[in-house]
């Protein structure tokens, strides 16, 4: 942290009177519920994202376990037909949109501004807006459980199975509106982070000196920006089909179900990279720190990430090899898909290169990072297998695929994210996760994960289709399914251990200090948890891994110049606009049951949104001036 000085510059402006918003005075709470509801601090928003994501991951995990109970024995009657279909639809939707994505967003929020030496993101209130709209979407998707009509069209939602003719209740309406809300949240966030990284970097932090996690953040947010419009359009078309008879995807009136599949995967494949690139960035931070060496081939890792992101838009139809696109299209997408193996391989080689010649410390974050490399590679290998379209005709929509994407999404994404949690937990809470319990949780996770998902390759090759709620005896499925179900419960136990560790260590963990890992990037140069304004003195960057360089060469990190620090004020409007969008969605949900009441509710929601947009614009960012000598942690 900046050295405190007794001299306050005489140029420091005096705090002005707080500007009133349209709702009277602006919120100023620094403690309690209101301080969280009105916060615009990227660190608090990061924590909000993280906590909600973990809660949703627990939801998704419970859904998975219920399915595993049903599938443990053949011809089971625990959870059949539509109930099972709701379960797998919501498991996937929850884990992807409400688990992994917001957990990556938690890291974008918490870590990226710290890594680039900024005091907040470019649009702090928009950031809060993103979170509240995300939460609204998450609640929307899960509301169906209350009435037993949760979304049930699979996470890909291929019409006509999601059309009103085959799905007459509100299942797919909840799904469409929920995902549209999440899309709005993601689009706002992507613009915000793109702007932040482009504009708010500390002096000297050129693009090729940025930490890889920041690079992966910017690539991911470009993907979000380009991938969410297609799915939003498709969802609106689906909603119009369902509620206003629009016939976009209705084959009996000339619509084309295949069109949805293209819309969906033009979004869906980049989405996969949206889930994996941030954890790749996290791993690229952990490995150098715990190897005490710079990342091997930094520019190649960066360009590989960007190339993977770019290619993400050139491979979508490999999810559609069996849709009858014709041999030439299948072959073309087969080739583009296999090309992705090259930049991915480059990343893996470079991570191993980073280990080579290093001084590796096997602490928990490092274990997760190493596990990421191993598990993600195995998922990558089965990816190569799928890229060969000729044989993919067989594996497509079997448990072999289920095994593949759980290897990349749990073995890859979640492993990387758990590593990130272990790595930045001291920065966020000021305390280190208990190492013993952390390691126990890691090994349980690692073994149970492999025991759960590896056998899925085998039952997949034995011909078990995915998304089936029951199967017959004598097909070679039953023993492995029992084994998988037991392992899945052990896997759940490992998450429980991780969560217990988080709670325990928040109170009793070893105090971290600024830089518990002897790390390399700027966020470790300030106190843990960081103060509201992050950096009292904006750092000046001269090298890649600048903090490490300064530590090694004994250079001082910048000193506070005595100016009071200008920070924006809290606001009610992001929360209100989120609530407005939620209400608007709620109105639209019942539009074909009772259009009068629905229209009134939707109009109410729209007015709330309109009101908060005006309030937002008129109150302005506001300003308060903080004295670093009097401030402590960012949240209490």
């Amino acid at each position, binding site marked *: 942290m900046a050295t405190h000085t007794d001299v306050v510059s005489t140029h420091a402006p005096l705090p002005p009177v707080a500007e009133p918003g349209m709702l009277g005075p602006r919120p100023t709470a620094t403690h309690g519920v209101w301080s969280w509801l009105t916060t615009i601090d990227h660190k608090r928003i990061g924590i909000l994202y993280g906590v909600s994501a973990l809660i949703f991951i627990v939801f998704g995990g419970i859904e998975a376990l219920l399915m595993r109970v049903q599938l443990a024995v053949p011809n089971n009657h625990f959870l059949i037909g539509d109930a099972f279909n709701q379960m797998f639809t919501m498991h996937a939707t929850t884990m992807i949109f409400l688990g992994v994505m917001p957990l990556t967003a938690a890291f974008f929020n918490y870590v990226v501004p710290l890594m680039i030496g900024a005091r907040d993101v470019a649009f702090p209130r928009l950031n809060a807006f993103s979170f509240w709209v995300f939460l609204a979407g998450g609640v929307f998707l899960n509301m169906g459980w209350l009435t037993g009509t949760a979304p049930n069209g699979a996470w890909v939602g291929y019409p006509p199975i999601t059309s009103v003719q085959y799905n007459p209740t509100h299942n797919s309406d909840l799904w469409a509106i929920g995902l549209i809300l999440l899309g709005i949240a993601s689009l706002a966030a992507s613009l915000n982070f793109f702007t932040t990284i482009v504009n708010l970097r500390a002096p000297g932090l050129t693009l090729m000196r940025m930490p890889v996690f920041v690079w992966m953040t910017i690539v991911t947010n470009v993907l979000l920006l380009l991938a969410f419009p297609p799915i939003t359009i498709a969802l609106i078309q689906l909603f119009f089909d369902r509620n206003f008879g629009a016939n976009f995807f209705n084959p009996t009136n000339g619509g084309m179900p295949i069109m949805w599949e293209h819309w969906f995967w033009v979004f869906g494949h980049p989405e996969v990279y949206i889930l994996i690139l941030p954890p790749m960035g996290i791993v690229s931070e952990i490995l150098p720190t715990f190897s005490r060496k710079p990342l091997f081939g930094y520019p190649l890792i960066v360009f590989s990430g960007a190339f993977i992101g770019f290619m993400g838009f050139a491979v979508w139809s490999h999810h559609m090899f069996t849709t009858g696109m014709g041999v030439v299209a299948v072959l073309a997408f087969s080739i583009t898909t296999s090309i992705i193996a090259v930049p991915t391989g480059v990343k893996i080689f470079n991570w191993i290169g980073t280990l080579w010649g290093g001084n590796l410390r096997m602490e928990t974050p490092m274990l997760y990072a190493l596990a990421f490399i191993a598990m993600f590679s195995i998922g990558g290998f089965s990816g190569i297998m799928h890229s060969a379209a000729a044989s993919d005709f067989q594996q497509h929509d079997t448990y072999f695929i289920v095994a593949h994407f759980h290897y990349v999404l749990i073995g890859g994404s979640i492993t990387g994210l758990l590593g990130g949690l272990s790595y930045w937990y001291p920065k966020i809470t000021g305390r280190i996760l208990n190492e013993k319990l952390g390691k126990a949780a890691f090994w349980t996770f690692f073994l149970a994960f492999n025991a759960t998902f590896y056998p899925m390759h085998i039952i997949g090759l*034995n011909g078990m289709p995915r998304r089936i709620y029951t199967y017959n005896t004598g097909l070679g499925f039953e023993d492995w399914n029992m084994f998988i179900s037991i392992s899945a419960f052990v896997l759940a136990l490992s998450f429980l251990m991780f969560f217990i560790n988080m709670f325990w260590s928040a109170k009793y963990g070893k105090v971290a200090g600024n830089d518990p890992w002897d790390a390399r990037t700027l966020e470790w140069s300030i106190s843990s948890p960081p103060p509201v304004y992050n950096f009292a003195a904006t750092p000046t960057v001269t090298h890649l891994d600048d903090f490490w360089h300064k530590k090694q060469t004994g250079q001082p990190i910048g000193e506070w110049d005595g100016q009071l620090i200008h920070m924006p004020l809290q606001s009610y409007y992001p929360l209100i606009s989120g609530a407005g969008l939620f209400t608007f969605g709620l109105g639209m949900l019942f539009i074909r049951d009772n259009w009068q009441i629905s229209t009134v509710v939707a109009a109410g929601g729209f007015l709330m949104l309109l009101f908060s947009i005006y309030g937002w614009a008129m109150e302005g960012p506001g300003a308060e001036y903080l004295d670093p000598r009097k401030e402590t942690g960012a949240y209490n």
Partner: protein
Amino acid sequence: MRVIQVGLLSVFLIGLYVVALFLPHAMDGPQSIMNVFGPVAIEQRNVFMITVWVSLFLLVTVGSVFLYAIFRFRAKPGQDFHVPEQTHGSAKVEIALIVVSCLLLLVIAIPNAKALFFVSEVPAERKKDAIKVEAIGHQWWWEFKYTDLGITTANELHIPVGVPIDVQVKSVDVIHAFWVPNLAGKIDATPGQVNTMWLQADKPGTYNGHCTEYCGDSHANMRFFAIADKKEDFEKWVANAKADAVKPSSIEEINGQGVFMRGCNSCHTIAGSGAAGMVGPNLSHFAARTTFGAGIFKKSDDKDNALLAKWIRYPKEMKPGNKMNLDQVNMVVSDKEVKDLIAYLNSLK
């Protein structure tokens, strides 16, 4: 302690791989894509095995370098704060690895491209021998139409051994996928669209099929069979299948037909009887099939017809979402009538 941990772990992981690859019969289930009986599936498995060997090669080489690095370069006790040489990368190594990766991809890409053309369409020189079949997906059963032979049947696709079958895949409602893993990979049945694939069985036998595109409540129950017959058996089957249904002879069968005509006929066809419904499976030769309920129930397990009776009385309990609905056609049936109906159905050889 660490050595034990890592040792156990390696044993565990290697064990999984060994089970997967080398344990005899680990992947020889009746629905396996590894244990195959037709040229299409064999070609697909061969390409798959190439990808497996390439992956195994990568796993072993990259994996051993990775594990070696972890053990070789771990911090020695007391040296936690030793700072190693700060190297940033090597262009030569990178370029070499990229070139090797691209070459490995070519090893897969070329056989894949060749196989892709082979599996997508009946080879030109064999087209004239091919039998054309339309496979039409319904929620939740398959209709098979032999367009040249004038046969319509359901859930059991009879094919002659050694003859290519040109399959036109369609759907009347939602998206399904047609898949007989032992014989060929799958293709989607998308409404408003005709997709083609081909398959051939080289050995007589009954091969499992399963819908593989999620299609609603009973997706799990949308099973079928491809039954490969010797040429003469197939011809016998064709002759029987082309003929009208057997006329009822016993008093029970005649009564049963009467029950059938009270409502079943609005959805089901029985050729020659006047029942011409198009919604449900064609039952003209119901008794010649080995299963009912879209391949869920084997008749050999139902000698006393108890399951069939339950199927007729409580169709939704037997299969979630079942579209067979007696209320819809205002049918009330007594136990005796169900018995008669079963007698009639079982007479339809």
